[in-house]
């Protein structure tokens, strides 16, 4: 008995030692990541394309604040920051000894210059409004930056952690689009146009422990079946961010690979033109909300990956309120509401679906079928992306469409009646303005919650699901992100299990 106990103890020890050993990151190795879309240039401050941020943000470039995989704001180039009690003055304490890849030093002067560049009147930063609130920039010393805002901005820290707020060097910034220079853990090597971007470990990184990998290559493979074939043939190690849901299913059964199913900042919605008949009638929009079975949409469109949502807010973003119960699937109720709205026999409408997004086309077909059951006949029209931008987004020539909104913290678009939803609600605008000025966490949670609830009540758009992240990789790739609270494929802490 004693011997047996001893034997068990030893086995336990060996096993636990083994797991500890196996979970300690090992340095070295190179990783090939597949990213479906090739970025249009490598400058996150000149273009909003998510493909740019996915390649360079957090790998080559960093801002004052970073976001970790749990969605928490963690120190980046600022080691800590303070907000004054009035909520308008932010003091950032900058990291000392940080070098750019070209040898330039990072300090408060550089940070000030970057913020001024972003808010300049000639800026091509897609979001100058993030920085416009800054009315005064002080530098008490070389490593302290004090920003004074004209009013309280509850999203200021969130915005400062996005790709639009990266820090560029004052001398080497002109060629950022083709030769990016940042402070990140990886140094840009080359961009073979049409094929790949290569980056190697930056030895002068401010955290000497990181990164673990020696080299990271982003390869651009658009075709979903080609991605899977490349992974199976060993040409790539990771399909970053999202694989086609139908192949994710197949790959999860293969022992050589692992599939993560996490959350992202994206919401897939059936955008509705609130000024077009009959969708200007709230009852009609609510009837549609009742007629859609969101879980079935997720099952049919995304093969079960993804989370149903009830408003324009992703479950991975703080202050999320679960509103999926507000209009739970109820076709009877939908028919009643349609009758009340004056459409006892339903009506006909057109849904325009962008050709480039397969999830959108599939979801459109599924929803056309669901709505037909309550008498709403949808005609499906597939449109090219440029056409979508021009006709639907700019000229608002549409009734319904289906699209994913990928940016986090973007509920503010509902406060703009000119936006393509054409939603005009003073109640929402007031709630959003209050939320932006909320001085503390409780107030933020309360008012951002209110915002989510108002648009859910008004059924402004059809809220479908939060887009899943479905990275697929070899089983020995460790430290890859499961959830994407920010738009980046951060390879800083990724390592190879030997």
């Amino acid at each position, binding site marked *: 008995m004693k011997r047996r106990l001893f034997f068990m103890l030893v086995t336990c020890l060996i096993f636990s030692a083994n797991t500890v050993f196996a979970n300690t990151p090992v340095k070295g190795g190179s990783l090939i990541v597949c990213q479906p879309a*090739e970025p*249009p*240039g490598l400058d996150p401050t000149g*273009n*909003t*394309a998510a493909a740019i941020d996915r390649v360079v943000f957090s790998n080559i470039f960093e801002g004052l604040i970073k976001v970790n995989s749990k969605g928490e704001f963690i120190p980046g180039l600022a080691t800590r920051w303070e907000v004054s009690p009035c909520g308008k003055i932010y003091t950032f304490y900058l990291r000392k000894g940080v070098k750019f890849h070209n040898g330039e030093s990072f300090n408060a002067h550089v940070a000030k210059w970057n913020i001024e560049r972003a808010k300049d*009147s*000639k*800026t*091509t*930063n*897609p*979001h*100058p*409004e993030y920085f416009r609130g800054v009315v005064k920039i002080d530098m008490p010393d070389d490593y302290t930056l004090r920003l004074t805002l004209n009013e309280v901005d509850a999203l200021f820290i969130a915005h400062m952690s996005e790709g639009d707020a990266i820090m560029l060097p004052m001398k080497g910034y002109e*060629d950022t*689009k*083709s030769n990016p220079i940042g402070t990140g853990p990886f140094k840009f090597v080359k961009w*073979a*146009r*049409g*094929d790949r971007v290569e980056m190697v470990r930056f030895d002068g990184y401010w955290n000497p422990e990181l990164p673990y990998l020696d080299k990271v290559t982003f*390869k*651009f*493979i*658009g*075709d979903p*079946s*080609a991605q899977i*074939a*490349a992974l*199976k*043939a*060993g*040409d790539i190690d990771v399909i970053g961010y999202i694989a086609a849901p139908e192949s994710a299913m197949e790959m999860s059964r293969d022992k050589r690979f692992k599939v993560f199913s996490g959350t992202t900042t994206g919401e897939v919605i059936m955008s509705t033109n609130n000024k077009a008949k009959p969708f200007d009638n709230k009852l009609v929009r609510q009837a549609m909300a009742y007629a859609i079975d969101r879980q079935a949409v997720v099952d049919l469109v995304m093969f079960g990956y993804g989370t149903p949502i009830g408003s324009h807010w992703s479950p991975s973003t703080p202050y999320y309120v679960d509103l999926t119960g507000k209009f739970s699937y109820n076709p009877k109720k939908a028919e009643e509401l349609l009758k009340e709205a004056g459409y006892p026999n339903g009506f006909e409408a057109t849904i325009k679906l962008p050709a*480039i997004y397969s999830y959108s086309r599939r979801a459109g077909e599924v929803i056309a079928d669901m709505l037909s059951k309550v008498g709403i006949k949808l005609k499906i029209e597939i449109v*090219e*992306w*440029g*056409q979508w*931008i*021009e*006709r639907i*987004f*700019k000229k608002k020539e549409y009734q319904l469409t289906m699209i994913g909104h990928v*940016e986090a913290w*973007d509920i503010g*678009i509902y406060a703009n009646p000119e936006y*393509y939803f054409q939603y005009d609600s003073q109640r929402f605008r007031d709630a959003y303005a209050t939320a932006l000025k909320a001085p503390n966490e409780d107030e933020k949670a309360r008012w951002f919650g209110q915002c989510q609830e108002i648009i859910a009540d008004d059924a402004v758009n059809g809220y479908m699901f939060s887009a899943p992240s479905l990275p697929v990789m070899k089983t020995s790739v460790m430290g890859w992100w499961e959830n994407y609270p920010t738009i980046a494929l951060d390879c800083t802490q990724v390592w190879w299990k030997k």
Partner: protein
Amino acid sequence: MEKIDCIFLRQPVSDRLPLFKGMAYYLIKKFITLLILLFLVSITVYSVLFLLPGDPAQIILGINATPETLENLRSELGLNKSFWHQYADWMINLISGRGNRSINYDMPVYELIVSRLSVTGPLALMAILFAVAISIPLGVYAARHQNKKGDLGVMFFTQLGLATPEFWLGILLILLFSVHWGIFSAGGFPGWSVDFWGSVKSLLLPSFALGVIRASILTRLTRSSMLDVLCEDYVRTARAKGLKERTVIYVHALRNALIPVLTILGLQLGQLMAGAIIIENVYYLPGLGRLVFQAIGQRDLPVVREVVLFMAVAVVVVNFIVDLIYASIDPRMRLQKM
């Protein structure tokens, strides 16, 4: 008959001189046609892209961009100027050799085209080589065994080839050679200067997929054309005079039978140069087809314009070369007034 043939070829020197004159005249005419064509293509491409819905600035900056940023980018890209002003800017840049820059790739478009051509060019040539190597022997074989088992077999496979989409064959080849046997990579292109043989290898599967599909048409064409020629008098004469069957088939008959085949081959090569878009996507090759496909989606208009212009030139040049080959295959064509 052979004697007549010889007389036919042996012309007096004085008669040959106009031939060279004719050739020069022909070349000049072709060149002028090319210039006019290019001008028309450039105007057409420019106006079509000008009228194309989809504001490039909005596509670049995304749907959440502020109006002010959009305006800044539009003026930076010169999108606020009039149609003719923009066209003139473009033309001046093109002719002066300064070149236009790609919006997304941030480099001169001609450099992009040259680098992409180093993939698409060899890919197209290899595909044509595969097509010729497969189709000509098969076509000749089928013609010689008309309506026998072998012919029926060849016809069956060409029918299958005609019905097969090339991307499907491409995926099938990947599954077999890359995923199952692991002897080829599933796609990608290492680059000629990095790894020459690796680059050749990476083009083998896609060019084979392209070649096999094209070989189906060419085999059928070779067969029918060969059948026509084999009924001609001079073939009977050649046989009657006791030439070996090989000589009759390969020297006398095939040479004449190749003319219609060559026409189609030229069209196919032009088409392949203009980009094997789908195959380049399946094998993620950085070729011309994928470049223009991506550029249209992202409204990288300088790239789209110049690639389309280049494709027009490529088709014209390929046809011109085909004309020259006609002349070398068929002596009668040299005599015709060109």
